[in-house]
């Protein structure tokens, strides 16, 4: 009986190939979504998928784009740059796909960029914050704002002005995002006279930060800047608390999520970050997105989810104006003016990224509370 | 008669176990030399020491004019010492002929570059190895099985193939470890005949064997070991008369 395993596997393969290549209905407009659905970044990829699908369903409920239904083609990039490049190749080859949303990490976006650029298809990344990404091509767009903007804000307004501290240590995750966040923050700190007492790297998946924190504490900084995603950041604040170290805690917007509160509990109290998406934003479109997201994902959306939603809406807006031609979509996207998303007003710079303005947010009594409005 | 292989005060200890203890012996060129002793007497360990498979704890080993103590096995082989193994160590997933071909390793020179370029050196080597390999197989009556995998051979064939493989090394001295173990009388006779034939051609043979008929019948000289210690060395007749040997074999 065992012998039939392989054969059935082969048969399945053949069937799936046919299913995949089978033609689809003519009256849809296809958008590719490249996201890490499995692997270390799976939860972020999952956020992408929920948000983009919510947006697509909205658009379709309102009659689609130019009368056509939006169809999302999801591909799993596993968080690997070379896989993201293969997906890019698949997307550009499929003539029915008019633009792409993704990927999550900057390295994946950068690896896929040459292929999208060569084949003249928009790659709109919701989360790539590396300053080089949007610059890497005409067809590359990033909407989360770059670290070149967020770093100075965190150093100048959060650390110096809001928290009123003069020295800070940086703990950062050793990946493309973390290093870029650290470097931009450190550069900005030097400019505004914020002393950086030390930088310490860790690798994704690390659970024990006591050694790093002991190192950092040596120099007695007044604050700790935690350049990490919420899961590691919550570990860091937990362990700061366990050391009974009374220090100001600040972090980039990546920590803003419900999960952070759950995982850090009381030790997260007083952590300051920035954001351009707030759950208490009274705007109807924001609240209805939050409600819909909660219903599907059973949790509140975070910043990553919000920008993914806006990415789809932005593309829909551009396609509505430009039609279904890939190059025309690129031009329309670049010309976007005053687009009102759930993450505020979006307009692209000449290179294709967005200059964000930020709110200051702090964890108070176990909740994210906006302390200062956009500036 | 000149000495070809000998040892001086040879010892091998495994922790507290004295597997071979202060053994002196010498093999003369051209003879058939038997090593006997009860199980665990240290016969195979002695072979492993002589061929460099195991390092010695103390003592010296000489081959012809030079010392070979603790030389690695491949160097020992290059000097002209070949062996077979008690528990048959063929290259099981290789064909019979290929097994023999490896024996010619030391007599050929092909390196990786020659192989890649498929130059004359490779062709000459391959031709030589192929022809001589076939000759050796013919000698042990296995020509018809040249393309069988070694693992599929019968027990007797495996033993014979091991001897053929060892002969490919073109040894001056051949160490065979229980070549007739597990064979029927007819097969045993064949092996004895083969070894005697080889000896006539000038190869010195050292043999470990449990079958006393075989040993007593063919050996010029015999070394008796017991618990790692040498009991006696001499002709079959001398050994058989030695009271210590009788005691070791028959008990008190």
């Amino acid at each position: 009986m065992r012998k039939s395993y392989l054969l059935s596997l082969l048969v399945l393969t053949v069937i799936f190939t046919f299913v995949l290549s089978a033609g689809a209905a003519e009256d849809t407009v296809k958008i590719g979504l490249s996201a890490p659905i499995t692997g270390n970044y799976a939860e972020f990829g999952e956020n992408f998928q929920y948000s983009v699908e919510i947006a697509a369903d909205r658009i379709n409920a309102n009659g689609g784009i130019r009368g056509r239904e939006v169809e999302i083609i999801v591909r799993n990039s596993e968080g690997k740059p070379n896989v993201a490049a293969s997906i890019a190749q698949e997307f550009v080859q499929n003539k029915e796909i008019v633009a792409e949303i993704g990927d999550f990490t900057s390295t994946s976006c950068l690896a896929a960029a040459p292929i999208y650029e060569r084949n003249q298809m928009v790659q709109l990344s919701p989360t790539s914050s590396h300053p080089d990404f949007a610059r890497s091509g005409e067809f590359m767009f990033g909407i989360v704002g770059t670290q070149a903007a967020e770093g100075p804000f965190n150093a100048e307004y959060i650390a110096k002005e809001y928290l009123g501290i003069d020295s800070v240590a940086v703990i950062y995750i050793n990946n493309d995002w973390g290093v870029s966040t650290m470097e931009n923050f450190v550069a900005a700190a030097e400019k505004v006279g914020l002393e950086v007492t030390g930088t310490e790297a860790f690798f994704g998946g690390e659970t024990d930060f006591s050694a790093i924190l002991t190192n950092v504490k040596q120099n007695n900084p007044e604050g700790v800047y935690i350049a990490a995603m919420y899961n590691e950041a919550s570990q860091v604040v937990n362990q700061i608390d366990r050391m009974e170290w009374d220090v100001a805690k600040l972090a980039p917007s990546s920590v803003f999520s419900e999960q952070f509160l759950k995982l850090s509990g009381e030790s997260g109290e007083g952590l300051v970050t920035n954001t351009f998406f707030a759950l208490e934003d009274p705007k109807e479109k924001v609240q209805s997105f939050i409600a819909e997201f909660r219903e599907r994902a059973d949790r509140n959306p975070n910043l990553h989810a919000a920008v993914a939603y806006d990415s789809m809406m932005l593309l829909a807006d551009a396609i509505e104006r430009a039609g279904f031609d890939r190059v025309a979509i690129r031009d329309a996207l670049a010309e976007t003016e005053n687009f009102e998303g759930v993450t505020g007003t979006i307009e692209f710079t000449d290179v294709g990224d967005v200059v964000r303005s930020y709110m200051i947010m702090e964890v108070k009594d176990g909740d994210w509370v906006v302390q200062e409005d956009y500036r | 008669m000149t000495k070809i292989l000998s040892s001086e005060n040879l010892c091998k200890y495994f922790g507290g176990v004295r597997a071979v203890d202060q053994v002196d012996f010498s093999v003369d060129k051209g003879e058939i030399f038997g090593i006997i002793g009860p199980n665990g007497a240290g016969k195979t360990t002695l072979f492993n020491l002589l061929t460099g498979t195991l390092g010695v704890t103390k003592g010296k080993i000489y081959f012809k004019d030079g010392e070979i103590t603790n030389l690695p096995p491949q160097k020992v082989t290059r000097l002209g010492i070949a062996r077979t193994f008690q528990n048959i160590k063929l290259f099981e997933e290789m064909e019979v002929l290929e097994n023999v071909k490896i024996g010619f390793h030391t007599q050929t020179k092909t390196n990786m570059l020659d192989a890649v370029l498929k130059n004359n050196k490779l062709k000459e080597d391959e031709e030589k190895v192929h022809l001589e390999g076939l000759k050796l197989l013919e000698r042990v009556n296995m020509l018809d099985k040249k393309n069988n995998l070694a693992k599929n051979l019968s027990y007797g064939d495996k033993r014979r193939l091991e001897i053929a493989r060892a002969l490919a090394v073109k040894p001056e001295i051949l160490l065979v470890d229980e070549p007739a173990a597990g064979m029927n009388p007819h097969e045993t006779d064949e092996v004895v005949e083969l070894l005697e034939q080889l000896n006539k051609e000038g190869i010195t043979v050292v043999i470990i064997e449990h079958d006393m008929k075989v040993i007593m019948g063919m050996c010029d000289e015999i070394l008796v070991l017991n618990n790692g210690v040498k009991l006696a060395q001499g002709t079959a007749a001398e050994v058989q008369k030695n009271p210590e040997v009788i005691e070791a074999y028959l008990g008190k």
Partner: protein
Amino acid sequence: MAANIFEKIITNINKNKLKYIFLLIIVLLILPFVVENQYVLHIAVLTLMYVLLSSSLNVIVGYTGQYNIGHVAFYAIGAYTAAIISTRFNLNFIIVILISGFVASLFSLMLGIPTLRLRGIFFAFTTLGFAEITRLTILNWRSLTRGPFGIPGVPIPQIFGMRLSTNTHFYFMIFILLFLMLLMTYRIINSRVGRAWISIREDEQASASMGVDTFKYKIMNLMYGTFWAGVGGAFFAYFAGYVSADSFILDESFRFFAMVLVGGTGTLAGPILGGAVLTILPQVFRSFARYQMIIYGVAILLIIHYKPEGLLGGRTFKRDLSESEDN
């Protein structure tokens, strides 16, 4: 039963090897002219690349029986060497690929000298450690490797003034590399050197008794295999135009290993089939998004259960590669 047909096909292929090899080469040569879908070509390039990599691992694992489970390290070293050299010096890509292979080979020499004396599984542990050390060093040594950012902008290879930038160009590039690799390996395996390698796999002690300097041959074997891993890495750097440490995680090593075992160890054809199956399968299942890796894991388990000796029925390993004691 249907499965028997599959068996028969395999036997038939084994019988008429030359014919089928010839046929396969013809098909592979025509492929890029017939297939217009760039995605399919892209996957075809990746497939040939993985076949090269799994074949290079097979040289080490399959022919000499050294458990190298850190093969990805040499792939990474090759890729990074190519990326670093080609972005700093204006060298022809053929030279860069060769240098990358040699650098990978050199690292394997450094690893092999102290560790190849270790028996079977212990050598495996050290290769695993080496793979992690390599990846982490790439991430840490920012001045040389740009750390987690990876190295973008690997120049487009050129030959005789022609820019090799399309999938078809890369297809022929990897095809030639793979062809060379297989031809060279075939010749070596059927020579004195290859026999020595295989004899080490079969029984190291007996091999030494035949006069084979087993340590030297193990080193040579490791260096030869890792040379091709380095070449594969360099090709990857050119093909992707971008290298980053995320591509060289331990999972990739296990993937090579799975390819060799799934196809069948110690045969030239095994890793070719294994490499192809395990490269194409995940692509086919990519649209299953979050179920993709589940299917991938199950597929490996099923194939190993169905055919422990590999799809093409290569030899099986002895349970113990260690030397048996005989006292």
